[in-house]
């Protein structure tokens, strides 16, 4: 475009003359408010326009002419107001479409009160987005009739965008910190970005093998999401490391396309259909930022300005980089957490004996059903080992969180085993564990039930744990008495109870995961159902009893059980069975318990 400077100067001079004349006329017409007018025009750098009753421009200061996208006053003056509106898409603050009738000056001409109006405009051609605050006031003639309206257009784009960005950053950060389910969280964040920040927002993650997976695609209009679905069919197996998301995931650097001309789509398109889809999205500008921690690239976040025509700018780029950085931290935390939580789970399970020892004259069987993963791990444990002339069986439940619970379980098991070398009395063992737990700097509590088995005599003590059941053909009864939880209360002590196990009688110890199991309508399994179940299984071998119990529990339960569940059954062998034959040899094999112990220790 050539520039004829002489012509330009002449034009300017003429415009100036014309404007002077108009202002003179206005001053004349608005004698009463001359001073006010003078003050407004003099002091404001904002765009100021004055329109007549037919809504034609009578005056526009130079800021207004530039703001409305005109080169000269004449151009503006000769363009019908509706034509000017046509170049813009206009929304209110709430996202609703604004028409000419909503404009304050037009409302004043209709005789209405007009509050200041905040509008968002996007130029149809350039995609430039602006936020404007329109304030209008009537100019009255001598009879008090509205003769003209004066409008001040205050551009608040930067302020409004900063506000939206702050809001988005705050909401996204809160969302990212709120949950450990990071895929859901990323979907929420993508949703928050539209339409305030962009028309489209997508999040892609890289897994350990370097494969890309799209976890979120958001658009304010759900119907348009099918476009994204269709486009995904065109994603190549191997991303181009030189371009687009491939480049971001490869280099860890953001890419920013301030404008996406059609030629770019043509180059990117794989075939005609692909090009159609790309054009249908209406790409206007796009940015892709990496989600990375140091050198590790976890994924990328893509923002697209499309059909709204909005052009993303460097502020949007900065903002997305901040959100992506926070997302990366959230992803990492969540991955670490699940790793840690499964370590805790594994550790907890590894604390259970791999195989129960054989106790001469007895059958021994157990079940352990780990609870679903939650931040709380109810660590059930049990252990069976031999000490001198007796066998010891311990079952307990540590309530705590993750690795701490597993560590506590390990401590309890170790403590009770070590203590049993000195004193194998169940009440003394509970006292010992209680004292050990109380020495811990943080509240450490656990339930435990301890049985010492010598021949057919079982001595037991119970600390905050459900009482074990004595199951025989004669019926089911609870054994022992409740004693305090371990590690919890001052001046605690435990009493021992003794029972003689007849052949065929079973001692069943369990954790509250069984009685607390939830069925239909939040009904709990409870002691009643447990008693019924084991009564029916009374004459079964120990292994069948615990399996049968587990089956009944599974039938009763709705959904996954949230707490650990464990049970251990000790059944005195019936005469004539293999177990009973060994029972005869009980006294003789006692010497062998030392080796059994070292094997299980």
């Amino acid at each position, binding site marked *: 475009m050539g520039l004829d400077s002489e012509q330009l100067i002449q034009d300017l001079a003429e415009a100036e003359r014309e404007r002077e004349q108009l202002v003179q006329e206005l001053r004349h017409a608005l004698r009463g408010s001359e001073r006010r007018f003078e003050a407004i025009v003099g002091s404001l750098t904002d765009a100021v326009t004055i329109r007549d009753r037919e809504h034609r421009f009578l005056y526009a200061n130079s800021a207004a002419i530039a703001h409305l996208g005109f080169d000269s006053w004449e151009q503006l003056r000769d363009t019908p107001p509706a034509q000017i509106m046509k170049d813009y898409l206009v929304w209110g603050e709430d996202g609703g479409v604004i028409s000419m009738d909503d404009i304050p000056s037009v409302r004043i001409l209709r005789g209405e009160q007009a509050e200041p109006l905040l509008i968002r405009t996007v130029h149809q051609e350039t995609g430039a987005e602006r936020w404007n605050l329109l304030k209008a006031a009537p100019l009255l003639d001598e009879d008090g009739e509205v003769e003209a309206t004066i409008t001040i257009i205050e551009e608040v784009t930067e302020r409004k965008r900063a506000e939206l960005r702050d809001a988005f950053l705050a909401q996204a950060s809160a969302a990212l910190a709120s949950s450990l389910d990071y895929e859901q969280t990323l979907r929420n964040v993508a949703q928050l970005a539209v339409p305030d920040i962009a028309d489209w927002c997508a999040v892609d993650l890289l897994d350990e093998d370097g494969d890309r997976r799209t976890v979120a695609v958001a658009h304010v209009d759900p119907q348009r999401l099918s476009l994204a679905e269709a486009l995904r069919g065109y994603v190549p197996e191997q991303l181009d490391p030189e371009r687009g998301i491939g480049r971001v995931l490869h280099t860890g650097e953001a890419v920013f396309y301030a404008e996406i001309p059609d030629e770019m789509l043509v180059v990117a398109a794989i075939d005609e259909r692909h090009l159609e889809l790309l054009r249908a999205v209406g790409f206007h500008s796009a940015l892709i930022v990496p989600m990375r921690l140091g050198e590790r690239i976890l994924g990328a976040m893509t923002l697209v300005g499309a059909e709204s025509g909005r052009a993303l700018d460097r502020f949007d780029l900065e903002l997305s980089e901040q959100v992506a950085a926070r997302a990366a931290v959230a992803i990492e935390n969540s991955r670490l957490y699940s790793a840690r939580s499964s370590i805790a789970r594994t550790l907890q399970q590894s604390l259970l004996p791999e195989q129960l020892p054989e106790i001469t004259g007895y059958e021994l069987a157990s079940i352990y059903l780990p609870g679903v993963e939650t931040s709380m791990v109810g660590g059930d444990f049990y252990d069976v080992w031999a000490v001198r002339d007796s066998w010891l069986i311990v079952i307990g439940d540590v309530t705590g969180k993750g690795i701490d619970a597993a560590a506590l379980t390990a401590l309890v098991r170790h403590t009770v085993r070590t203590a049993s070398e000195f004193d194998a009395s169940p009440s003394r063992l509970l006292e010992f564990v209680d004292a050990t737990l109380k020495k811990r700097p943080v509240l450490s*509590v656990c339930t435990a039930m301890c049985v010492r088995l010598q021949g057919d005599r079982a001595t037991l003590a119970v600390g905050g744990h459900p009482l074990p059941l004595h199951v025989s053909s004669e019926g089911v009864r609870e054994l022992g008495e409740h004693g305090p*939880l371990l590690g919890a*209360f001052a001046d605690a002590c435990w009493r021992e109870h003794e029972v003689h196990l007849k052949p065929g009688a079973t001692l069943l110890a369990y954790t509250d995961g069984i009685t607390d199991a939830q069925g239909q309508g939040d009904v709990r399994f409870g002691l009643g159902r447990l008693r019924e179940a084991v009564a029916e299984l009374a004459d079964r071998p120990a292994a069948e009893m615990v399996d049968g119990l587990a089956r009944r529990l599974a039938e009763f339960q709705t959904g996954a059980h949230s707490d650990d569940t464990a049970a251990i059954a000790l059944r005195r062998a019936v005469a004539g069975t293999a177990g009973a034959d060994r029972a005869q040899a009980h006294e003789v094999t006692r010497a062998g318990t030392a080796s059994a112990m070292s094997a299980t220790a």
Partner: protein
Amino acid sequence: MVRQARITISEEVRGANLQLSIDGELDISTVPLLEAQIEATHESPTPLTLDLSGLTFMDSSGLRLLIELSERSRREAWQLSLVPSRHESANLVLRITGADTALPFTERAPE
């Protein structure tokens, strides 16, 4: 008021005393809600009353929370009062563990 299908926690300030009334089930999945509610509303050394009379179930994680609160109240020197549940199914875990006598339970709701 915090409301989830299985637990309702309502808050009432009586003079210098904060009272939280808990109805429903206090177990491994609802304990975090009560924990969060206490965290948000209770400030040491304000006396705190937990009215559990409407509680229909409590498991060991609920008990653990009560013990933790009891420990904390001792350490920070504020008064904790617990109103027992009207339901045996909620008191069972307290009875089994000896918490019914060891924790600061009142006989009935303070008037």
